[in-house]
């Protein structure tokens, strides 16, 4: 493609922000917003991980007193689980790789000074933060947080406090929080799409965009549709809970010895709406990871990505197909069994672009001069864990096998490998890669490598055994296992708990590295990795207007590595043709 956009102009801008508030708090600078999102994600992931420690502690030692909580009751376990899932999926996996890094680097990748709607962008962070605060407020209301899972199936989530502790105020706060979250993400997605389409600098055709920028673009398009549907579903849920409507509640339900007066609703309607969002959501979580790996791997392999157009095509295909598969979460839900086959086929077909992408990464690794930095290692780790997570999906995509494996730990293993491990590895890779550019300092590579090695071992130790539990029929979302049921599984649960606590502790190395490097790390040059994309042709960290007023001209693709040039073995995008 040789379409060229006109030089970017921001509507009008004043000089750099001067007050503390406008520089660090209510900032319209996409770089600050990106860091704010990353900060929120860090707080969220710590919270979510601590919640999971309590869950794992209870599963391994059901009668023991957990520090600070005492003996965990069945409802407390489910409340921990609900908040763990909600916080991790929304406030970690949708923020960090997409809103966090995306906000910081997308305008840099397009050579722009900022996004076209900086105030919307600022609002998107503050709206997202508000959503987070509304959600964690559920911890302090009298009955506590909801217990219906992050999936909040109706009628359990729709009938109010009768169905369980936390299903009163807690569940309403949950629905309001998610609704607010959707608004925040829609505001962000708008900016991303417009920046990619309208704000590319001279010579930067769409084909020359870095892969991660493509990933953010595709993710934004997926997000526009998905979050719109989810926000509507949340409104309907709130109405059922507080306004006496019956979107999801049929007639004749008896909850707590009382016959409810609702009538005419359908619990399956919630599931369809939720999963129509929910499946694309998991691709929103992983596609930026695809993009990050596709961008970082060539930089450390010192050779271009194998099959650049194919990779972009794979990401776009996954994005498109993500809308055709939602029913695979509902094979046994009571929907017409015939439709199960209709959802199974595209679910199996989506393995094709995912497989191709994996092979392209492996093909890029082949014959490379790989630089095994921490970021480079996390890219390789991503490939391994994504293969593992993707293959377990193969089983669940077939309805006849799902009949056995549905709602067992096999599913828990699958989604944790692709989301909690692969997507997080993508975030780690991005952090180690971009930290120097964001903060002007290098992270400690020794600590980074320890972090990588121990985490890689840890995640396999935690999540691989869950496949075995699932094959043995161990049901998920149980707060404990009575001795006569799954007694043989208990030793494995103890192993998983210890591995999880170990892996959690290892993250302290990362946290320490992050904080220490921020203040005392070695000064970073403009381009420590000898990388090619536009962010590396400015200072570390970039000045407030990104490129110091320069209007860049791009003459090269995003991964020209392994070529002879005055620089060495690479050509930057802004180098002369």
């Amino acid at each position, binding site marked *: 493609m040789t379409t060229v956009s006109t030089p970017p102009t921001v509507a009008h801008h004043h000089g750099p922000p001067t007050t503390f508030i406008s520089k660090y708090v209510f900032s319209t600078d996409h770089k600050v917003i990106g860091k704010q999102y990353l900060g929120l994600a860090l707080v969220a992931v710590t919270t979510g991980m601590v919640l999971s420690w309590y869950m794992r502690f209870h599963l391994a030692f059901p*009668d023991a007193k957990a520090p600070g909580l005492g*003996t965990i009751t069945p409802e407390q376990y489910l409340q921990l689980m609900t908040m763990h899932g909600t916080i991790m999926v929304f406030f970690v996996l949708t923020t960090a790789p997409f809103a966090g890094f995306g906000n910081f680097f997308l305008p840099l990748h397009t050579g722009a000074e900022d996004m076209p709607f900086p105030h919307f962008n600022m609002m998107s962070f503050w709206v997202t933060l508000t959503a987070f605060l509304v959600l964690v407020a559920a911890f302090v209301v009298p009955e506590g947080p909801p217990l219906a899972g992050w999936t909040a199936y109706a009628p359990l989530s729709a009938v109010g406090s009768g169905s369980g502790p936390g299903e009163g105020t807690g569940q309403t706060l949950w629905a309001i929080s998610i609704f607010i979250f959707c608004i925040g993400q829609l505001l962000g997605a708008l900016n991303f799409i417009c920046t990619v389409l309208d704000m590319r600098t001279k010579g930067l055709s769409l084909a020359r965009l870095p892969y991660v920028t493509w990933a953010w673009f595709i993710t934004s398009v997926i997000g526009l549709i998905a979050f719109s549907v989810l926000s509507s579903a949340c409104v309907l849920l709130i109405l059922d809970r507080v306004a006496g409507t019956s979107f999801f509640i049929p007639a004749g339900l008896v909850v707590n010895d009382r016959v409810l007066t609702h009538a005419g609703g359908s619990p399956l309607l919630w599931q369809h709406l939720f999963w129509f969002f929910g499946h694309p959501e998991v691709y929103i979580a992983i596609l930026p990871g695809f993009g990050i790996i596709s961008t970082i791997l060539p930089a450390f392999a010192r050779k271009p990505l194998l099959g650049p157009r194919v990779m972009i095509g794979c990401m776009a295909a996954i994005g498109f197909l993500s809308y055709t598969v939602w029913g695979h979460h509902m094979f046994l839900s009571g929907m017409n069994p015939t439709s199960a086959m209709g959802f199974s086929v595209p679910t199996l077909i989506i393995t094709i672009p995912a497989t191709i992408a994996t092979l392209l990464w492996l093909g890029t690794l082949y014959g490379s001069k790989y630089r095994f930095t921490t970021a480079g290692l996390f890219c390789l780790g991503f490939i391994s864990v994504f293969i593992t997570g993707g293959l377990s999906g193969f089983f669940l995509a077939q309805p006849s096998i799902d009949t056995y494996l549905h709602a067992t730990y096999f599913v828990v293993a699958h989604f944790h490998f692709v989301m909690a491990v692969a997507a997080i590895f993508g975030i780690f890779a991005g952090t180690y890669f971009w930290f120097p550019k964001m903060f002007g300092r290098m992270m400690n590579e020794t600590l980074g490598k320890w972090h990588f090695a121990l985490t890689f071992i840890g995640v396999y130790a935690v999540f691989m055994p869950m496949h075995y539990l699932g094959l043995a029929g161990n049901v998920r979302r149980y707060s404990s296992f*009575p001795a006569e049921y799954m007694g043989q599984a208990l030793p494995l649960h103890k192993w998983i708990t210890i591995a999880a606590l170990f892996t959690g502790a290892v993250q302290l190395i990362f946290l320490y590295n992050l904080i220490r490097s921020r203040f005392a790390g070695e000064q970073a040059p403009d381009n420590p990795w000898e990388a090619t994309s536009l962010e590396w042709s400015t200072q570390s960290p970039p000045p407030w207007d990104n490129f110091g007023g320069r209007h860049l001209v791009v003459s090269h693709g995003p991964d020209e590595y392994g070529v002879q040039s005055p620089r060495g073995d690479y050509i930057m995008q802004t180098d002369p043709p």
Partner: protein
Amino acid sequence: MTRTIAALGVALIGTTAWAPSAPRATLAGSVTGTITFTGTPPKMKPIDMAKEPSCAKQHATPIETETVVTGPNNALQYVVVYVSAGDQGSETPTTPVHLEQKGCQYIPHVVVMHAGQSLEIANNDQTSHNIHPLPTKNPEWNKSQPPGSPPIVTKYDNPDFIPVKCNVHPWMHGYHIVLATSHFGLSGNDGTYTITGLPPGKYTLTAWHEKFGTMTQDVTVGAQPTKADFQFKATPY
């Protein structure tokens, strides 16, 4: 003269100061009676505790539902008889009322207390229970009680007739009866009940059964124990 008056005055004061006060208990009367039924009561069903083996094995023969518990000679158990009018007032007892969860059953099936009186609920089973009262005049609550945890200590501030269920074991049902008076009795398996501590006077008694409703009767309490029987109409369904 003055000395006589003074002496009489001292004697009077002394007598009143030193004379023991007449104990009210010896002056209080009691009401006793037998609760029976006519007609055919519904058949109680055996409870299959299949889902909770640790409780199922505690009952060699399954226990039966307790909606209508009858005794010899058409006696009716678990009828609460209490003073609903004429009461001079009573204090909230300081001793707690005890309720036990054992063998996945509420023991006793009906527990009666004064408003504000402490209720202690113990879980003596190997499984978790989640006790859930469904009051109309008090705040609703439910609480999980894992095995081995200490008794739940609670109270109800307002008179109420509260069905109680266990969220985890659907067959576990009972009643917490909260009254404004401490003058009440609960009929045993022989149908008899006793209310003590009633000063002489006219009272209205109400008898309440969870399935057969309420009946009232006026009584006059004197020095001798008063008799007040109730007979409920039982129907099979």
